[in-house]
């Protein structure tokens, strides 16, 4: 029975796909640790087998009592530790460098919900359990959960990040090989956890531009947010150009905000999300608490993402230009336009299954 399985095993691919800039360096470390482990395992197995054979029990040959050896103990404590320090430093270095996405990263919003991945693009189009990205462009995902903890994992990219309810998580990658790759939820999230899977489609820029231009119809993410802004009556108090009962939102994105308790916070995605869902958590200096109704349970995480996109669009510059890195980009970049500019630099793309 076992012998009949061997060809199946041989046929199955036993080498994991590498499809992002991150995958190669992570695999190099993985194989370094695996190689060192294999050597250690062989050394220990070989010593045991050798000793077991050489010193097997024979009559008239007695064991020689040995107390131990401090020299040996220090050797086999310090040497492995030094090798482990290399593993630690290497892994920490890669991890540290992978913390912040490049400033020119394309932003996509992902909401995890029992049991699906909802994807929103800045141009307003949406998908479920599928993510389309152009090859060669860094992609930053801003992720939220509607319910329990999920974990966004694309094995071929060697990336993974938990999506924890209550705040935004983010992860980024630069896909470098066109194709179709598994997207898994890797934090147990209930009954259909195993069904919370999807595909990431990495496309040639030209192909991607075609795909991106086909979507939409509901306006950009910011326009959708603007509609919600009207619908929920936000505009009654958050006036655009003059002081109302609530702060002016024009131009605040990623700017410092003075709070009534003296602290200063940056009006980033996390702050805006909290202020929508739980307005009393942080009160801007000069304003009263309990003016704004809280929207927790009233709006979905996807709605919050749309509202934030709208608020972002009210600010003339993006974080990228503020930080001085990368070139200024419009607040709500069109995916099609961005991909098209990528395509100019790339050779004609090959067909990618959608």
């Amino acid at each position: 029975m076992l012998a009949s399985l061997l060809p199946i095993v041989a046929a199955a691919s036993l080498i994991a796909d590498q499809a992002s800039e991150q995958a190669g360096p992570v695999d190099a470390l993985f194989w370094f640790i695996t190689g060192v482990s294999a050597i250690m395992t062989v050394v220990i197995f070989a010593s045991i087998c050798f000793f077991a054979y050489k010193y097997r029990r024979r009559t008239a040959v007695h064991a020689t009592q040995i107390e131990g050896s401090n020299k040996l103990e220090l050797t086999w404590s310090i040497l492995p530790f030094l090798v482990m320090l290399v593993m630690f430093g290497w892994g920490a270095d890669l991890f540290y460098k992978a913390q912040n996405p490049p400033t020119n990263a394309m932003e996509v919003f992902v909401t995890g919900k029992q049991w699906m991945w909802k994807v929103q693009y800045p141009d307003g189009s949406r998908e479920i359990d599928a993510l389309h990205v152009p090859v060669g462009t860094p992609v930053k995902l801003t992720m939220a959960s509607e319910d329990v903890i999920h974990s966004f994992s694309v094995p071929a990219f060697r990336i993974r990040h938990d999506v924890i309810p209550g705040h935004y998580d983010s992860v980024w990658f630069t896909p470098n090989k066109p194709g179709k790759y598994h997207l898994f939820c890797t934090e147990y999230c209930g009954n259909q956890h195993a069904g919370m899977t999807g595909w990431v489609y990495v496309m040639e820029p030209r192909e991607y531009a075609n795909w991106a231009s086909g979507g939409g119809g509901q306006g950009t993410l910011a326009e959708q947010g603007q509609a919600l802004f009207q619908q929920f009556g936000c505009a009654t108090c958050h006036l655009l150009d003059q002081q109302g009962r609530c702060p002016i939102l024009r131009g605040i994105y990623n700017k410092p905000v003075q709070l009534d308790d003296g602290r200063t916070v940056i009006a980033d995605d996390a702050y805006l999300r909290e202020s929508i869902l739980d307005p009393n958590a942080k009160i801007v200096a000069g304003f009263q608490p309990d003016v704004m109704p809280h929207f927790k349970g009233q709006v979905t995480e996807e709605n919050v993402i749309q509202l934030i996109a709208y608020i972002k669009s009210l600010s003339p510059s993006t974080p990228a230009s503020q930080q001085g890195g990368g070139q200024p980009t419009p607040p709500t970049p069109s995916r099609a336009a961005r991909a098209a500019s990528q395509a100019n630099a790339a050779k004609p793309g090959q067909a990618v299954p959608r």
Partner: protein
Amino acid sequence: MATLTHGAPEIAASEVNYLNVEHGWKSWLFTTDHKRIAVLYIVSITLMFFVGGFMAVLFRINLLEPEGIFAAETYNRLFSMHGIIMVFFFLVPSIPATLANFLIPIMVGAKDLAFPRINLLSWYLYVIGAFLTMYAVIRGGVDTGWTFYTPYSSTYSNSYVLAAAFGVFVAGFSSILTGLNFIVTVHKMRAPGMSWSRLPLFVWSNYATGLIQVLGTPVLAITLLLLAFERIAHVGIFDPNIGGDPILFQHLFWFYSHPAVYIMILPGMGVISEIVSCFSRKRVFGYNFVAFSSMAIAVLSFVVWGHHLFVTGQSVYTAIAFSFLSMVVAVPSAIKVFNWTATMYKGSVSFDTPMLYAFGFIGLFTIGGLTGLHLASLSTDVAMHGTYFVVAHFHYVMVGGMVMAFMGGLHFWWPKITGRMYPEAWSKFAALIVFIGFNLTFFPQFILGYLGMPRRYHAYPPEFQALNVLSTAGASILGIGYVIPMIYLIWSLKNGPKAGPNPWGAAGLEWQIPSPPTTFNFDETPIVTEEAYNYGPLEEVIG
């Protein structure tokens, strides 16, 4: 060794020992004899082992087909209950509550543990906890995984979370009391001459385990109580919708549960030190280093929990610190492996069944430990987290390590516990089957994890099927490997050849008293004049 066994002097049938001194169920249920309580524990944890193992067989069957065979709901409850039962009702008490309960008083030269009644109480707490958890199973099970992660467990799960968690809560106290008893016994009950540097390494490792049990388990109890508060009274502790923080649960849970994985391996390491020394007829190489490595593991185990949270978005500097500390804790484990290997050097090595399990332990624990490095290093953990790589890693340590050590220790001390020998050929055959079955089950899971297959999936992409089928085939072999000893050990109770006091020619106080021992172990308090593992030539001991 069989010839030695037959050569051992016959014990007079009239001789009274702890097993035949009293009869009837009351004499067992109200006993305060540490040896009888150990036997009660052996029976209880063996039952739970086979319940948990049966669940593993069922969900391995489910994984034969990519789309799964059972409903997702069934599968989720099976793996959750498997984890809860195996961790809290088998692995944690496995060696401490059975072999150590039986042996620690004898090894230190005492008549019993420091608190015999508390020892019995700990067994009752274990049984109550087990019943509560089995109640949850019978009512329909729990589907949170053994980790009970919030807010799924506190708000969303529709299964019997409270009953299962309460069972674990109660069993936790059993574990605390056992640890407490060991610590006090080792401190206060050592016979004259039994200095700390003469303690068998099995005592050292269980002493270290006791410290973790006493210091860590209360945190688990608190965590489960908070979980219950939130689930029953909707007090916002972990669920962000009512003001809680789900990551707080993970910090609290792993503050116990990472040290707990050392509760689940340190006693096994102690068993291996005894076995390797006995069957090499040598003092353990580097006794001091092996003893202190147990203590180092106990201390360090409390500062590595954050490596379970590398992908939760904890601060990057916190993650780096935990990664470093996780590397540090690997050093004392490595020290032990090297010393066991060196103990065989210039020894007189025999291949009795306990030694075969010890070989299995060293090999499998080495693989389990080294693959821990992939998970301690940050960027490789990000790639492997939540996949079958992790499942394979901890099964190599927990099953390849601890269960191998438990089986080895059970065979090693079986003649002492029961007064009978087991059939040698069958036991060697079973040890081989366990080793083969184990590797066939869990090695493919390393590859599955490396290829990206997530754990806790009742269905999976078809390209993973071949490796899953291989793993299930291995699991069925492994299952047979565990059933065979169950049969011949029970058979040996009546039919096994009688074992003398010292069938292995082993050093150590437990081998200087009759098999089975009398109720109070020693007629007179022994006076210890030599170091542990004082092995001379075999003939002198056997006589």
